[in-house]
C-alpha cells in the first residue's frame, strides 16, 4: 500500500534499528533516513493503544514512513514499552498518563546533528500522547492528530456530558497559544468525532476560530481504529498533504 507516487521512496535499506532508553526499559524503533535532499523536518509516528505495534494496522506507518522519507523527511516509529519488540510491561493505556517517558525518549533519540523541526503524527491514544508530552516543546513545528479523544478518563468519550478533559483542553490551548499548526483528523462516523462535533461551536469555538493554528478535517466513514484500508489511505494522504505544505 503506497499512499502517493513519491519519486523516490525509502525501503528497508534506508532504515536503522534503534533501542531507545525510556526509564528502565528499551523501546525498539525504526529510523527511516531521508531519501534525496533532506527537508529539515523530523517526523515522529505515534501508534494508538490496544497493543498497537509501531507498524500500525496493516503496516500503515511503515508505508507512511517510507513515503515521508521519499520527500526528504527523517521518520521514527517505535513500539511503546511492553509492546512489540520493546522491553517492559505496558499499563492500562491511561489517557491521563500516556507514556510520556516513551515519547520523550523517542524525541531524544532523533539524531542531534543539525536538530530539525519536529512533526508529530499520532493516532488516537498516540495523538493524546503527542499533545500530553510535547505541546509546549520548542522543537515542535506541527502535529497531525487522528481521532484524539476529548476526555482524559477511560476511553476518552465525553458523551452527553460535554465535559472536555482538563488535560486535553490545556494542551490544545497551549498549541493554539504557541500558534503550532495542528490538524485534528476525524472520521465522520467516529464516536470521538461526535464528541468533537457536540462542543465544536461552544467549548472549542475559540480554539478553532478562523485565525487559529488549529484546524479540523473530517474524512468520510470511520477512521478511529483504522479498520478500513480505505480509511488508512485517506488518513495517510491527508498527513502527507499537511506535512508537504509545511516547508
Amino acid at each position, binding site marked *: *500500500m503506497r499512499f502517493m507516487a513519491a519519486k523516490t521512496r525509502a*525501503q*528497508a*535499506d534506508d*532504515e*536503522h*534499528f*534503534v*533501542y531507545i532508553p525510556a526509564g528502565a526499559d*528499551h523501546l*525498539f524503533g*525504526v529510523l527511516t533516513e531521508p531519501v534525496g535532499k533532506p527537508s529539515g523536518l523530523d517526523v515522529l509516528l505515534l501508534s494508538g493503544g*490496544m*497493543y*498497537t*505495534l509501531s*507498524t500500525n*494496522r*496493516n*503496516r500503515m506507518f*511503515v508505508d507512511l514512513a517510507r513515503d515521508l522519507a521519499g520527500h526528504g523527511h527523517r521518520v521514527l516509529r517505535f513500539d511503546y514499552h*511492553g*509492546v*512489540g*519488540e520493546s*522491553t517492559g*510491561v*505496558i*499499563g492500562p493505556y491511561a489517557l491521563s498518563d500516556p507514556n510520556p517517558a516513551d515519547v520523550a525518549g523517542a524525541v531524544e533519540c532523533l539524531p542531534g546533528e543539525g536538530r530539525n523541526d519536529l512533526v508529530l503524527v499520532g493516532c488516537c491514544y498516540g495523538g493524546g500522547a503527542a499533545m500530553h508530552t510535547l505541546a509546549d516543546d520548542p522543537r515542535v513545528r506541527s502535529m497531525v492528530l487522528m481521532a484524539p479523544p476529548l476526555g482524559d478518563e477511560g476511553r476518552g468519550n465525553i458523551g452527553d456530558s460535554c465535559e472536555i478533559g482538563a488535560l486535553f483542553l490545556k494542551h490544545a490551548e497551549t498549541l493554539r497559544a504557541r500558534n503550532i499548526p495542528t490538524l485534528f483528523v476525524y472520521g465522520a462516523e467516529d464516536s470521538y468525532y461526535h464528541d468533537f462535533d457536540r462542543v465544536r461551536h461552544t467549548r472549542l469555538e475559540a480554539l478553532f476560530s478562523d485565525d487559529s493554528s488549529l484546524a479540523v478535517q473530517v474524512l468520510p466513514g*470511520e477512521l478511529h*481504529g*483504522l*479498520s*478500513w*484500508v*480505505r*480509511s*488508512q489511505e485517506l488518513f495517510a494522504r491527508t498527513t502527507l498533504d499537511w506535512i508537504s505544505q509545511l516547508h
Partner: protein
Amino acid sequence: MMATAGRVLGEDQDVRADLATNGCRERPAFVGPIGGAVFACLHLPDKPARGAVVLCSSIAAEWKFNYRREVLLARRLAELGVAAARLHYLGTGHSDDGEITFGAMVDDVERVRDWACGQADVEHVVYFGSRLGALVAAAAGRATGSPLACWNAPTTGAAYFREVFQILRVGRLAGSGTVDDMPAAQDLLRSGQPLDVLGYTLGPALYLSASTLSFADELGSPPRRVNLIEIGDARQAQQAAGYAASLRDQGFDVAASSVDDGRSWWLDGADAPRADEHREAVVTLVEETAIWLAAAGGGDALHGG
C-alpha cells in the same frame, strides 16, 4: 549461508547494537537483498546455542494479536539455551514490499533460518507456527522432517480462510450493522481483487496459493513430531483433539494440549486483555511451548528455568 544473492543487510553494520535482556541478546536485522529484505529478530542465549527455533507467525490481525506472546516465547527459548528467530514476511510488518504468497512466505522463512543458523552457529532447527503460520512452518521443515509446535493450526487453508471470512462478516455487522453490500469474499479474491479484512489487506495471491493446502500434506512424510496446542474453549479443544487423533492415524508423532483462553484475534476491543505478561493462560502457554521446543531443539530445558 544466504540463499539470495545481493547485499545482506543483516550481516552488515545496520544494527546499532544488540539488546541485552536477562543475559540474552536480541539482534534485529534486515535479511536479504536491497528492495527485498525481510525483517528478522534473532534471540541469542548467553552461551553458545544448542539449536534454533524459527517462529512462523500468522498474518494480519492474528499477527498483531500473537506478536507479544511470540516475542515472549522467543525470549524464553533464549533463556533455555536455544536461539530463536522471528520474521516479518515480505510485504508485511517492517519488511520490504513484496507480493505475499504461500510459497514466498516459506522462502522468507528459509532465508531467515539460514541467516539465523549462521549467526548462532547451529545446524539443528525446529519450527513453531501460529494459525496460518503453522502451515508455513510445516512446509519449511518438511524436507528435514523437523519437529514442529503450533498454536491453533488450521486443518486446511480453505478452513482457515472460511473462518476469516466469517469473522469479517461478524466484524462488519458489528460495525456498520449490515453486510448486505458486502461482496462474497471468495468471488472477489478469485477475480484478482484484494479483500479488506477489517483493515488488513488480504491479497488474491495468498488466498489462491494457500486455500488448496492441507496441514497434513505440508507436514510431509510421517513420522514427524508435532505438538498441537489449541487456544480456545472446551468445544474447540475437543475438535483439535480429534484432528490430532487423525494425524496419529496417519503415522505422525503428535502431542496435543489445550489452553483455555480467548481467541479474538480479529475483533479489537472485543477481548480487551491485560498485557500478555499478566495473563496466566498466556504465561502457561508460552512456558509449555518453550519447554517442548527447547527439548526438541536441543536446548537444556532446565537452564535458566
